[in-house]
């Protein structure tokens, strides 16, 4: 543990939805700058609820969330949302503007940046995800894999310090999955990746955290966690047939 502020610090976070359903029961999580961490867990474990706390979409329960030392509070929300970029699972939810370029520009313009800076960031973000030259295309003309990568670009253009990805490999074909992995490993940001794709977690994230029943039940090197058959079985996590994490 360093003395510098954590990139992301979650302390004793608990939350119940207005209908009474309690999703989180005291989550502790710390990500140091530059770490890539996978967030694993079965459906209904509270992963999405946790993610929505990281940029203050959900709040009001117990505990605290700090981003780079800045508490997630109402008056900090614009800066928190710049620092934490969330890429949602369905790129059609993320890409709502008529063209790719306008979508990637949406965040920077909300930050009030001058137009030349916005244009430079759009070009750079599209370049980072291998989609340079697509700015004028409408999203529905892109393949699913391309849309997923553009969705990543829409938050990269805000120069986030923490990138949060919700099921980044879902619905991708093998080539699209590999291309996205190449993009993600090249990004100089702290990364929290929510996924059911355990080999993808092993490939991209040295460390994993298992969330189940609204609490963190395991936190350690991804390879060790995936080699623990009892742990996986206890939390409805399963490796693909024939996959041996100790031999990758």
């Amino acid at each position, binding site marked *: 543990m360093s003395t510098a502020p954590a990139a992301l610090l979650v302390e004793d976070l608990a939350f119940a939805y207005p209908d009474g359903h309690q999703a989180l029961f005291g989550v502790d999580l710390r990500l140091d700058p530059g770490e890539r961490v996978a967030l694993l867990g079965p459906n209904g474990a509270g992963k999405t609820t946790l993610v929505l706390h990281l940029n203050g979409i959900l709040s009001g329960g117990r505990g605290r969330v700090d981003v780079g030392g800045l508490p997630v509070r109402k008056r900090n929300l614009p800066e928190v949302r710049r620092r934490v*970029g969330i890429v949602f699972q369905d790129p*059609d939810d993320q890409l709502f503007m008529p063209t790719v370029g306008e979508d990637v*520009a*949406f965040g920077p313009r909300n*930050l009030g940046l001058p137009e030349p800076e916005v244009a430079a960031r759009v070009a750079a973000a599209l370049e980072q995800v291998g989609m340079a030259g697509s700015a004028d295309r409408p*999203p*529905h003309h892109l393949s699913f894999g391309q849309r997923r990568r553009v969705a990543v670009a829409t*938050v990269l253009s*805000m120069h986030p310090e923490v990138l949060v990805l919700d099921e980044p490999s879902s619905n991708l074909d093998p080539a699209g999955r590999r291309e996205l992995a190449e993009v993600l490993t090249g990004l100089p940001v702290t990364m929290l990746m929510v996924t059911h794709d355990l080999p993808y977690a092993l490939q991209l994230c040295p460390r994993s955290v298992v969330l189940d029943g609204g609490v963190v039940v395991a936190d350690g090197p991804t390879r060790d966690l995936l080699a623990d058959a009892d742990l996986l079985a206890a939390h409805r996590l399963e490796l693909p047939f024939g996959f041996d994490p100790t031999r990758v």
Partner: protein
Amino acid sequence: MGAGHGGPLGAAYVAGGSVVHRLEPHLKLVAVLAFALVVVATPVHAGWAPAAYAGYAALVLGAAAVARVPAGRLARGLVVEVPFLAFALLLPVVSRGPRVEVLGLSLSESGLAAGGGLLAKATLSVLAATVLAATTEPRELVRGLQRLRLPALLVQILSFMVRYADVVGGELRRMRVARESRGFRGRGPGALRVVATGAGALFVRSYERGERVHLAMLSRGYTGALPAGPAAAVPAQAWLVTLSLPLTAAAVLAAGMLLG
């Protein structure tokens, strides 16, 4: 998704690079609206009205020719005026006043003029709108409306409609395929219940998608307004070229009023 240029809404668009295609969308909107106003302002009972209609028709068809909009596309655009057509055909029969004998039918003279005028005006206005739709992509139309200071909320609604029409259309298609794959035939009164349930499910899905899109927008700093990109200044020449359509039409109208 297999949809055409601009999604299902873009079916109206005829790709091309003509001078009409390249005109600024907000100027085109102004031009079409002004043209329609001139056409509607033409008095139907004036003796010179048919000549004026012919002049307007030459203008709008000339614009269509420059834009290389195929005749079939123009004809399809006219389908929307079918209800007006029925009303226009009824007018000569039900109107009062001096009658004329046409093919054995006794028709009202003023009714004929009113019906003919209605038909001509509707056709000319729809033709102008069709040329606009055929030469401007849906998202450019929305951008044009935004530049014309349409209220921001309406611009956002239109913008999302353009973006999500093919997403929702795709869901509708998949639901239909899933229904038919399980033997649904879509006939008889019983089918209505199934289709209504499908429409309800589609509504709920779209509503939920709306919520997810809103979350994604908030996550990127949305505060209630879609930030607009830079808008290049429009040179006076572009105004002149675009507005030549309504200005010439206005000249035709003025000539008719002065000389007729």
